[in-house]
């Protein structure tokens, strides 16, 4: 079966259902407010305080952790955005064989050595896939102060592939490396690299696309999902799909070098006629070893000449970084001027992100705290905000195993990185009208609470290591841990951003959690200082940890913590 037919049409019209188990009641969404935000792309010139820093960091990284907040507070907004967009393009050390575990040895790859240079081995492909997923999770957890990891996830969702469908995890590693290496580079270049990327070629049957019987899968998605989109009523035609498929005939994968190459004998050399949508462009048929490259360039030049490409991409970036609801005002004030900037820059991603992230619209208070965290954002953000310790590379098996635990909770919460549900990516990023509300249902929400509880109370054990939140360390991050009122204020701000609890609720939780039913604030102060003076006395430590756990658990269980 054509993979696209199998995955795309039915799944995409029913994506809401694919996330939700059948027994789940449908929730009637509350009535949406009328946005009508007046703000546009003018540079933001307002206050640069904790609220703004947290907003910027939560949207561009996974969770805003205290050290990062304090670091960027000391900069100007413009410097902060510039720094976040200056990414390190040196590849991190690659994923390794973490899977042999003393038995069932991979004959070609030593334990602890990287498998990304091959050779391929179907016996170990599945284990390497897990290795890659764990490794990527580790990169997110250990991210530096840039947008790189969030942007890599954006591109993975955009140029979506499924590692369980393409043949080789080594291709998967290279695919991911390309996304990382071009995360804030040039979009047109990235689109070309993705079109002939081995994982993508294999995933969308591009490696079987041949002159006698062109396979249209890749030619279609290149336009529909990767560049032009389907937002327009009047867009490319089915004949354009066929013509594009012919342009990209002949690309194959070298299974030894893991690179794609062009086989001119499989290439359709005739002229390719496009529709009025593309101004009746004819791409001249070529032959010989460079034909594939030249015709692909011509195809992308034709596609990228369409104004719709920049608009489509700006809407997608907007939904990922700002909010999903794009009304007419936002289209006019933000999307259109942003698309012009993108187009004029020759599709430079850094330029378009700079304009968006420095805009008064981005920092509009109405756009804060309104994105529902994706599972990855939730889990990695949780780990990062609480600075949970991980094993070091010296015990890489345990280290990968712990990264794997974080990956697996994302998996059960419906975001399995490297394996989105289909070529369109995760429905929460595109499905009208619910968008990221799709992440939350009666199955996934308790699982988010459970992982928070688990990390808070028991931890995850493996090989003598326990992954657990150190509540005392969390209290130390706050400005005055001995004052129960500022402790709660600080924690609320840290965990809930600009969404504030009422004073009544804060007082209630203070009495119930920190004061054990008392009303005298100094009891907490005394307990905390008593612990500080006697940090090794178990009873004194337990007095504060018990109460901090109750408090933090309550704050994490609140719906406010689901928002970014």
């Amino acid at each position, binding site marked *: 079966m054509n993979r696209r037919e199998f995955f795309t049409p039915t799944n995409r019209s029913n994506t809401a259902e694919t996330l939700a188990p059948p027994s789940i009641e449908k*929730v*009637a*969404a*509350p009535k*949406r*407010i009328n946005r009508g935000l007046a703000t546009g792309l003018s540079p933001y010139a307002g206050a640069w305080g904790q609220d703004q820093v947290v907003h910027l960091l939560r949207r561009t990284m996974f969770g805003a952790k205290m050290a990062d907040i304090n670091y960027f507070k000391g900069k100007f907004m413009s410097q902060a955005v510039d720094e976040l967009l200056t990414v390190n393009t040196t590849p991190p050390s690659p994923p390794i064989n973490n899977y042999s*575990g003393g038995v069932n040895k991979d004959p070609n790859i030593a334990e602890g050595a990287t498998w990304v240079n091959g050779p391929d081995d179907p016996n170990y492909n599945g284990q390497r896939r897990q290795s890659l997923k764990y490794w990527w999770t580790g990169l997110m957890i250990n991210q530096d102060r840039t947008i790189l990891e969030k942007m890599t996830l954006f591109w993975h969702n955009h140029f979506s592939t499924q590692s369980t469908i393409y043949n080789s995890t080594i291709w998967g590693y290279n695919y991911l490396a390309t996304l990382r290496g071009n995360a804030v580079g040039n979009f047109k270049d990235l689109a070309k690299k993705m079109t002939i990327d081995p994982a993508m070629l294999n995933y969308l049957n591009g490696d079987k696309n041949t002159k006698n019987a062109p396979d249209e899968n890749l030619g279609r998605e290149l336009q529909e999902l990767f560049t032009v989109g389907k937002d327009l009523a009047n867009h490319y035609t089915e004949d354009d799909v066929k013509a594009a498929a012919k342009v990209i005939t002949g690309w194959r994968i070298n299974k030894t070098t893991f690179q794609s190459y062009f086989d001119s004998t499989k290439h359709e050399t005739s002229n390719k006629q496009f529709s009025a949508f593309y101004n009746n462009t004819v791409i001249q048929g070529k032959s010989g070893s460079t034909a594939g490259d030249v015709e692909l360039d011509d195809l992308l030049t034709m596609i990228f000449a369409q104004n719709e490409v920049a608009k489509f991409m700006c809407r997608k970036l907007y939904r990922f970084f700002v*909010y999903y609801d794009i009304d007419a005002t936002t289209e006019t004030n933000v999307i259109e001027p942003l698309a012009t900037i993108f187009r004029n820059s020759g599709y430079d991603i850094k330029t378009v992100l700079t304009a968006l992230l420095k805009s008064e619209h981005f920092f509009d*208070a*109405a*756009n*804060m*705290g*309104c*994105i*529902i965290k994706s599972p990855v954002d939730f889990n990695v953000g949780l780990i990062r905000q609480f600075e949970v310790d991980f094993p070091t590379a010296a015990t890489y098996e345990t280290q990968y*195993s712990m990264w794997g*635990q974080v990956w*697996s*909770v994302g998996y*059960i919460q419906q975001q399995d990185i490297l394996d989105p549900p289909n070529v369109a990516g995760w429905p929460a990023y595109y499905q009208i009208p619910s968008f990221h*509300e799709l992440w*939350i*249902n009666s199955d996934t*929400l308790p699982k988010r609470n*459970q*992982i928070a509880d*688990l990390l808070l109370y*028991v931890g995850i*054990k*493996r090989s*003598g290591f326990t992954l657990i939140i150190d509540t005392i360390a969390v209290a130390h991050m706050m400005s005055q841990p001995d004052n129960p009122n500022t402790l709660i204020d600080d924690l609320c701000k840290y965990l809930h951003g*600009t*969404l*504030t*609890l*009422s004073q*009544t*609720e804060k007082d*209630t*939780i203070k*009495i*119930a*959690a920190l004061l*054990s*039913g*008392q*009303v005298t604030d100094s*009891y907490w102060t005394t*307990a905390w200082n008593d612990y500080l003076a006697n940090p090794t006395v*178990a*009873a004194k430590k*337990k*007095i504060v940890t018990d*109460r901090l756990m*109750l408090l933090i658990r*309550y704050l994490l269980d609140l*719906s406010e913590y*689901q*928002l970014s």
Partner: protein
Amino acid sequence: MKRRSFIKNTVPVAVLPSFLQGQNMAAYGPDSMLSRLAATFTDTDHVLVLVQLNGGNDGLNTVIPIDQYTNLNTARSNVMIPQNKVLALTGTSATGLHPAMTHLQNRYNNGQVSIIQSVGYPNPNYSHFRATDIWLTGSDSDKVLYNGWSGRYLSEEYPNFPTGYPNSNMPDPLAIQIGSIVSPVFQGLQVSMAMAISDPTTFYNLINGTTTTAPNTHAGHELAYIRTVASQTQQYATVIKAAAAKATNKSTLWPTIGTNKLADQLKIVSQLIAGGMKTRIYMVSLGGFDTHSVQVDPTDNTKGDHAKLLGYVSEAIDAFMDDCKLLNTHNRVLGMTFSEFGRRIKSNFSGGTDHGSAAPLFLFGNKVKGGIQGTNPTIPANVTVNDNIAMQHDFRQIYTTILSDWFCLNPTDVQTVMLQNFNKMDILQDTCTNNSVTEDIRRNSGKALVSIYPNPMQQSSTVEFESAGGVCVLSLIDTQGKHIRTIADDIYANGTHRINLDRAGLAAGTYYLRLQNGMNMQTRSLVVVD
């Protein structure tokens, strides 16, 4: 051998062929005859209501030792209740109640309230937090436990929880805390065994009025959406709402909502019990007992903050007992008040009392034996600030008695929960007959992921566990939370696995064996005997 280990491991072999001959194995499942039988028993299941008085209740002004009046008056004249205002108790002239507790006086005189004198523990602690922890966990003064005594009890009765819960044998929460945060008393061997609710119909904090309104912004829109899902998601929402809908409070003694916080909480408890909830333990609380200053009205020592609080307690318990009677649940409900400590004999100059040690507590219900346990504390003639009430009863004797004579646990299991052997007290009427069927149903309900047999262990036992695939870690920890040994830490294929557990130097006592397999976890207590 423990009863549940015996049943669990022998029924399939020895009893099954004759007992269930020709029947589908499903007959042994959740909807089996046995389960239905069990269901008919559950209406008689006993319920415990814990009433926590936060802050340290002044026992000497609650249960007043009239025969010590002279010395007491010397020690605390500025807070002393005039002797002619002390409420008399039937059958004694030596002991009386604070004048604000007329309702409780009547209940006592009807034999529905027991007073236990001078409850405490050796080497008392005077910090609210530490003393509260000691009361909630049931630990020695110098030991730290990481779970609550009720949590350990419920872990013993429902060892599989939360895996496979709710189920038809136990469709309801095991324990309910009225309030917004579950008390550490319910912390079980690995998870909290209780849920917190404030209002059974909406799940919003109506009592405290705390839920913050979602703002009218995009964020507010998403917040409202998530809250809607959250309220539907609470796995017990439906059963609690159904129970609340099924029963209406009947007593006319309930005070107006908002005038007595304790009564408001007990009203919900009564409604849920009458609505058919199988929940075993409820906890309610009232704060404000930390009366360092002005605990009495200087113009009238029978009035003031402490009098108000005791009035709330008395009124709330009275209305609760009346409601239970009218709703016909009175024979299966036992209540107990407690506070982290009593207050100092000698009062201070600010018209209050400082932190003390032992204090009286109340048990209430139709099945208490009534009367006073123990004697009045002896008040010395020249009381100094260092003098405290000597303990007559260890609070864990009361827990032990409740576990044994109210929840009908056998002595081995009581000791597993309490971690030591405490002497039972003769304070409850005999209520434990023919309890074993429900007990075994209870203990086998849910899904067992790990089991140990034989348990108690002498030399070695077999650990049987379920893997859903992936890494399984089996760790043995002691009751102080200290890691003792890793039993397994490897990848186990989906299915059942067995591992031998050797005693290898383990001292006799209680241990916990914890299985972790991804998000699946289960903990079992293991008793090692010589």
